[in-house]
């Protein structure tokens, strides 16, 4: 818990932009607009990570999500769009039901969160998180690390195989 004014301001500002950008991703009917707002959302998320003292994760977020995933998404849009750009991201017939389910989910989720007695008290502000991550990643979590690398290899090959012309 901090009560630093700047911290609070930063949090609420970044959150507001984040939520707004997410909404616009979903609401805009032009697919390219959605993609661009997605990039904004990713960036804001990196900001949230910084506020949470997870600098390395923030860096990775920018590198991977903004730098790779968003690009791949844009490539996908480029290679698949057909209709007029302004209508390329319409909503379908079940949007009302989807909205209801999402709203219900939100309410349930918030209720769960608020009424759970979290045992807070952790303080990592004094840590050098990057070095700690490095230490742990090659000691305790070495195996998942290797497995993820294999997964990425598989994904690479898989994506090529699925998407190639035959």
């Amino acid at each position: 818990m901090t009560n630093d004014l700047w911290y609070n301001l930063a949090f609420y500002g970044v959150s507001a932009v984040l939520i707004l950008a997410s909404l616009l991703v979903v609401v805009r009917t032009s697919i390219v607009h959605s993609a661009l707002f997605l990039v904004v959302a990713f960036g804001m998320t990196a900001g949230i990570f910084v506020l949470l003292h997870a600098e390395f994760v923030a860096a990775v977020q920018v590198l991977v999500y903004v730098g790779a995933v968003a690009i791949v998404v844009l490539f996908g849009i480029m290679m698949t769009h057909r209709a007029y750009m302004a209508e390329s991201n319409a909503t379908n017939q079940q949007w009302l039901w989807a909205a209801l389910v999402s709203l219900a989910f939100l309410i349930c989720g918030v209720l769960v969160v608020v009424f759970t007695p979290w045992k807070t008290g952790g303080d990592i502000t004094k840590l050098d998180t990057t070095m700690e991550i490095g230490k742990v990643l090659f000691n305790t979590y070495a195996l998942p690390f290797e497995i993820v690398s294999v997964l990425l290899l598989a994904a690479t090959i898989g994506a090529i195989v699925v998407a190639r012309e035959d």
Partner: protein
Amino acid sequence: MHEAVNPAPAYFWLIPLLPFASFILISFVLIPLKQKLLSGWVTIAAVFGSMVLAFRALLFVIPGGENARFETNIPWFTIGEAHLEFGITIDPLSSVTMILVTVVSLLVQIYSQAYMEDEQPRAYGRYYAYMSLFTTAMLVLVLANNFVQLYMSWELVGLCSYLLIGFWFQRPSAAAAAKKAFVVTRLGDLGFLVGILMVYYNTHSLSFDGAREKIIEMLNHGTSPTIITIMAVLLFCGAVGKSAQFPLHVWLPDAMEGPTPVSALIHAATMVAAGVYMVARLYPTVFNPLHQETTQALLVVGVIGGFTALLASTMGLVAYDIKRVMAYSTIAQLGFAMLGLASGGVAVGIFHLFNHGFFKTLLFLTAGSCHHATHTFDMRFMGGLRKYMPVTYLTIVVASLSLSGIFPLSGFWSKDEILATAMHQHHIIYQVLFWTGIVVAFMTAFYSFRMIFMTFHGEYRGGAEAEAGHTDAVDHGHHLHESPPLITVPLLILMVFSIFSGYVFLNGKTYGLENYMHFMGGHEGPVDMFVAILSTVVALAGIAGAWAVYQAKMVTAESIGRFFGPLYSLVYNKYYLDFLYEKVICAWILVGIGNLLNLFDSAIVDGIVDGVGKSIRGAGGIVRRVETGQLQAYALAIFAGVVVLLGYLALMPKR
């Protein structure tokens, strides 16, 4: 369980086993080896052995008199509380009937050697196999002492009858006749089976003795005799079918499609006698357990017997096929025997059965002898055979005299007893039946001698060629000759029996009628002269009438037919009973019910089964619309479920 009074010596088991061994031997050894005459000799040897043992059984039983009983049972199987046994019973009734069966069977088998000699080896062997099986079944029936064994052998005898009637099964008429015989007797057997079940239900016993004791006990304790009467009448249904009484008599005339020895053995002397035998055997059990003068059940037996006798005799007056005349005569005489059972008890009925077996078999065998010479059975195309076949003529005259009941032949004694006991009964119905019997005696004599005059007197009318339509080739009988000895010797032996079977020769002494009656449990009394004279006069009148019409031609048969007009055509068409059974009941009613049930089956039963399938298909057709193929719809459903779960967790009371 009722224990046997005295055990029967084990060798009496050979009586049914010898013909059975003959059947097995012929079926499995001789037919495959294509033996022909050997089948006949094996059967004759087996039946001869059974006959010897049957006489021995009679000797065994005579010292004990009326109440002699020898019984042996072997346990068969057990269902619940019912213990089924397989047994033989040697007592006066069974020993006398066994003699009838074995003697007649033996003579018929010998006769068949000549009669069936033109058959192929396979068919010849088949004939003798069926004959052996039939003899086995009939002997098991006679020796039976419990209902299950009786019913089993009853059905087996019916099966053999079917097989033998349809022996020349390539002929459609023979196949149809066999089927008709089996189905009609089966109708009677239905009542029989219900009767047996009813007896078991009320007495919990399947043996005759056990049932009898229970029934007597029930009647003494005040049970209404109506139940016993119903049981008896149901059991009698079986006899009505098997012995061809009204209304199930229609199969016997058609059964003449079988070979003549078959008609002689099965449909004159033995199988059709099974019905009479069954009533006699069950007489002390259900028909008259308390030894009264008469009972309701016996009245039913008597009325049906008497009515059948009258009906069949009228039909015998107008038939042209010689075997048909004899078939109707058999039906009538069996009715007469039933009447005898009702009015005079076991002794009187079985006495008539015994005598009738011999002279009726003789009559059939003479008809076969005529066929052997002329190759036809139609009396309109025979005639004048007296000159060419003297032995046959002699035997048939003696047999007809015995059938007509002329003193002192055997038939006189038994017929006289039946009429006398009927007259002495106090119930009014028996008086009516007595006068019916007198009329029947007249008609019996008339049609018997009509048969003789048409066949053996006058001019020969051509035989088989004339029947087939070659009227120009009216054979003047030059090639007609007497039958070979294998045929004529049995005829002569049977003639002797026809004369003397009213007596029993034993140990050099002559046992007369009185001893027989005492032996069989009847009451003895002086011969009733009124009845004797009346029946003889009536029989002589019948003979004279036949002579007048068919020999002296004082009145022609056609003019009598015209005189009676519609009555004649009614009788000639067998009272349209066959028409009723076949065209009305079978073709309309049964087929109609069958169509209705078919409709029910296809509409409702199939409807239900198909309906189950169709409704599942329909339900599936509706439910499958959930699979829209829309990915996001599925995802929506998944997340709706997640929301429900989450809501539950959120609202769940905290621990």
